[in-house]
């Protein structure tokens, strides 16, 4: 009996199933309303807002220095990069040029943040597929980065290390040596990651050809970051609109054209090497200079609109500030990468088997 005949013989009907809001495979609070027929996904409707914290509304009330501290809660795996985005937007408005020292330190910590975020992603990606070891391997290495952050910033996740005009204080004397030690250690670990998961046949069978996103759809859906680059859409903000010290380092934008889950996986794995390379180029040449430009205690941006984008671990984060000249912004909009990337979920997950939605 062919599959089609079998399908005609077995009567099935569509029904709804709730995935989440709390689900062990959803890393965050997200409810998906699935319409399924047997095990085949017909429709996926995300229901958001379970952890919406109205940060945009709070920004309208707060001063520019205070806004920085709200942003690391938006995505605590990219907290430093989010902080930098707001600081750069405010600096753009004030027309402040930060010192080279600040630029280089920001870039190094940005890349350490990206490695930490990709480590966590790699660990839980393997875990969701049943490979629990990846989680422990990744968290072992991520812990070293968190220790470096803790020593310099006093915090491990929500770092609050940036202020408009520069850094809150200088790096810890151990920062350079510990970062170098980490890089030496981590370079031996990425091949280990590949040996453990990338080459695994089961892993490849479950990710190749799954969730295919074409380049045209990636652009139309506003997808960015590794997700877009897995579909061949060159969207790296660090290349196209360089900020901090990205214009003085050599690195490659990783592009794959397959557009499936495995391509997106490979982009992130190779980005680990690029981040390592960026840090290696900068860590021995941190220029001397002041760590904070003089700003007034009450920052007032001139009347106008300021847009700044940065590349977080998940993609393009845009900060739009509309100022009327007061000490509070009139409107702040965060164009978050996750929101646009999530909107493709319905598009790429059907018609697939239900268990594929997790990755």
């Amino acid at each position, binding site marked *: 009996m062919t599959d089609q005949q079998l399908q005609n013989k077995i009567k099935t009907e569509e029904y709804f199933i709730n995935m989440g809001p709390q689900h062990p495979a959803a890393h965050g609070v997200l409810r998906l309303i699935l319409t399924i027929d047997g095990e085949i996904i017909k429709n996926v409707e995300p*229901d*958001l*807002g379970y952890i*919406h914290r*109205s940060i*945009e*509304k709070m920004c309208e*009330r707060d001063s520019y220095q205070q806004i920085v501290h709200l942003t690391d809660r938006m995505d605590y795996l990219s907290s430093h990069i989010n902080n930098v985005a707001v600081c750069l937007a405010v600096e753009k408005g004030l027309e402040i040029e930060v010192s080279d020292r600040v630029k280089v330190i920001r870039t190094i910590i940005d890349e350490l943040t990206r490695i930490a975020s990709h480590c966590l992603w790699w660990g839980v990606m393997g875990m969701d597929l049943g490979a629990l070891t990846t989680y422990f391997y990744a968290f072992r290495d991520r812990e070293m980065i968190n220790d470096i952050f803790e020593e310099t910033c006093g915090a491990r996740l929500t770092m609050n290390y940036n202020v408009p005009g520069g850094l809150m204080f200088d790096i810890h004397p151990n920062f350079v040596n510990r970062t170098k030690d980490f890089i030496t250690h981590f370079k031996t670990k990425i091949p280990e990651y590949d040996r453990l998961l990338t080459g695994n046949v089961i892993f490849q069978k479950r990710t190749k050809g799954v969730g295919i996103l074409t380049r045209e*759809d990636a*652009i*139309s*859906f*506003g997808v*960015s970051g590794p997700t877009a680059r897995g579909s061949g*859409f*060159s*969207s790296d903000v660090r290349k*196209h609109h360089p900020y901090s010290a990205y214009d003085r380092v050599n690195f490659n934008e990783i592009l794959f054209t397959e557009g499936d889950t495995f391509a997106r996986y490979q982009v992130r794995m190779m980005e680990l090497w690029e981040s390592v390379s960026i840090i290696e180029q900068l860590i021995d040449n941190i220029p001397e200079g002041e760590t904070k430009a003089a700003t007034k205690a009450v920052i007032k941006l*001139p*009347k*106008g*609109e*300021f*847009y700044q*984008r940065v590349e977080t671990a998940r993609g*393009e984060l*845009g900060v*739009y500030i*509309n100022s009327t000249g007061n000490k509070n912004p009139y*409107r702040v*909009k965060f*164009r978050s990468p996750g*929101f*646009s990337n*999530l*909107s493709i979920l319905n*598009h790429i997950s059907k018609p697939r088997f239900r268990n594929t939605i997790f990755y």
Partner: protein
Amino acid sequence: MTNEDLQHIITSFGTDLEFTTEGSEFLNVIVPKEQLHSICSQLKSHPELKFDYAFCITGMDWVPALGVIYHLNSTELKHEIVLKVMVDDRENPTLDSVHDIWQTADFHELEIFDFFGIKFNNHPKLRRLFLTPEWEGFPLRKDYVDEANMIIK
């Protein structure tokens, strides 16, 4: 392409378009709401413009007008503009959806409907995205008051 060249091409797309670069790094085009959809589709399809990437769509409350700001980019030709559209009616603000031009607008329009109450014609399924369906009012409007949950300084 320079802002002047962009302005030169876009002028022919509609009537009563306003152009300004004041207080912004981009060329701002203020579009009458009736022409929004036709201008957007021309911006995407014109061979010298090809604005295919709507990288930020923002709801705005310029009291008394409500509106939407579209940040557009051409991934091939690398130029960028900002489109602004305003609607004066606060009771029943309605704009045309552009989700058929840029699919990302689908979710962004839901967000704007949720927080500003702007309705979008032809949107596939307009609904509350973040808030519960029975929520009253639109929180990001400037005149929104919620004494229980807001701290107003």
